[in-house]
């Protein structure tokens, strides 16, 4: 939050909303970096992206230190994606400057003539003549565009010369589409950015290497599958999935589903086992209680019985003086 305050104390900070850098417009972003607008235009895509990530990290750090919320995950993600993202910028893109990318964007945009997002500003008419004019007109529009959209378009346009520029529904491979559909809609944290960036890689650049593609390839599958169920799926599985990705997303889904079912079955079995154990315990305790009670009763009975015995004996004792003589009398038994 600090660095944006430096730049514009008056403007309501879009950062405050979701903490995303990508919802900033170019203008705002540029000014936060304290660079001139020209600098940006002639900046390499590579550097451009790096600066975005730096800004993002700074912001994330600021957020963590400031709010103390659970943004550590986000931090890690940011950091992680920061590392990943720099790998995934396609070679052609990174060579170009922001300006060139923008020009291509606009050029194609005007060719197809589709309506762009509102932040684009007035539609640039087709058949532009002077470069300078173009430059002037584009600067403000570029500035008004949000980073997110720019990157999306850059990605989309880069790989497919004539896509419809409602780009978020692009009919490229399903994975890509899901990426955009999801992430464009969200004004969310780092992850979509990584996805976006790598999404731009996917259509033409699958061969670039599975690792950088890993995160975004898996995440749409995850998110678009059973999002609630797969949230506990740990990170290692992500990379496994990417290596298998060549077989197709369907297989990966099936495997994940099977794993899921197994886990559920296992959980149920464990629950039954616990219930069994508990029932057994309860029964034992009930038995113990019953036996203890029985024991107590029997003991009391025993005492009672003893008392009665004693009383009986006592009674006999008192009668004894009479019968004693009888007992000790000689008896007339056998003659020997």
């Amino acid at each position: 939050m600090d660095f944006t305050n430096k730049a514009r104390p008056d403007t309501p900070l879009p950062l405050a909303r979701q903490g995303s850098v990508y919802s900033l417009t170019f203008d705002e972003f540029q000014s936060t970096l304290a660079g001139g607008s020209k600098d940006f235009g002639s900046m390499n895509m590579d550097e451009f992206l790096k600066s975005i990530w730096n800004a993002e990290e700074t912001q994330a750090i600021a957020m963590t230190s400031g709010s103390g919320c659970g943004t550590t995950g986000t931090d890690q993600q940011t950091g992680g994606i920061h590392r990943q993202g720099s790998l995934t910028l396609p070679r052609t893109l990174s060579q170009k400057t922001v300006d060139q990318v923008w020009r291509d964007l606009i050029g194609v945009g005007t060719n197809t003539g589709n309506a762009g997002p509102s932040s684009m500003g007035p539609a640039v008419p087709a058949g532009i003549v002077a470069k300078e004019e173009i430059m002037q007109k584009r600067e403000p529009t570029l500035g008004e565009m949000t980073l997110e959209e720019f990157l999306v378009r850059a990605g989309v346009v880069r790989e497919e010369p004539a896509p419809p520029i409602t780009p978020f529904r692009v009919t490229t491979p399903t994975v890509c589409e899901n990426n955009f559909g999801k992430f464009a809609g969200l004004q969310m944290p780092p992850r979509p950015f990584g996805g976006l960036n790598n999404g731009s890689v996917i259509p033409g650049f699958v061969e670039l290497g599975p690792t950088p593609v890993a995160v975004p390839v898996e995440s749409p599958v995850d998110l678009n599958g059973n999002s609630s169920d797969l949230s506990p799926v740990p990170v290692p599985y992500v990379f496994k999935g990417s290596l298998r990705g060549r077989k197709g997303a369907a297989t990966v889904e099936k495997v994940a589903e099977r794993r899921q079912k197994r886990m559920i079955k296992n959980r149920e079995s464990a629950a039954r086992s616990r219930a069994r154990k508990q029932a057994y315990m309860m029964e034992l305790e009930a038995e113990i209680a019953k036996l203890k009670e029985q024991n107590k009763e029997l003991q009391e009975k025993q005492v009672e019985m003893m008392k009665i015995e004693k009383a009986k004996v006592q009674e006999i004792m008192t009668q004894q003086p009479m019968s004693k003589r009888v007992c000790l009398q000689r008896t007339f038994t056998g003659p020997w």
Partner: protein
Amino acid sequence: MARMLEPLVVGKVIGEVLDSFNPSVKMRVTYNSNKQVFNGHEFFPSAVVSKPRVEVQDTDLRSLFTLVMTDPDVPGPSDPYLREHLHWIVTDIPGTTDASFGREVVGYESPRPNIGIHRFVFVLFKQKHRQAVSVPSSRDQFNTRQFAEDNDLGLPVAAVYFNAQRETAARRR
């Protein structure tokens, strides 16, 4: 008397097989004259091959009882799609006596659990009068609740269950 029901509830006998009831009669089930059946205790299938002695205690000689024994975990507890399997039915058991004084409607079948750990439940119903209990056509897909309803037996008056698994199954690994 809730204390007596707890193991039945925790073991899910009340729920999956029976409805909650008030245990008003004492029933004592004993195998081989020395192994009494307590809720949730484990028996080897070899120990329960022959029918047990089922004593119906502290009631009067005029009351008549029906005993049902089923296995709700067929073919396996994780997927009991054949619930329940009927093992034994004895009717017209006079109070204060045992099952040998009743009429065996469905003969005792020795438990042979194959998959997983099964529960075997003994349920005692009090009959309203001497009656001819409807004999189920098959031992499979039996439903104790339905049986009680069909024969107007009402809620159980006693129940007990034991666990059993395959003789050679791995125990306590």
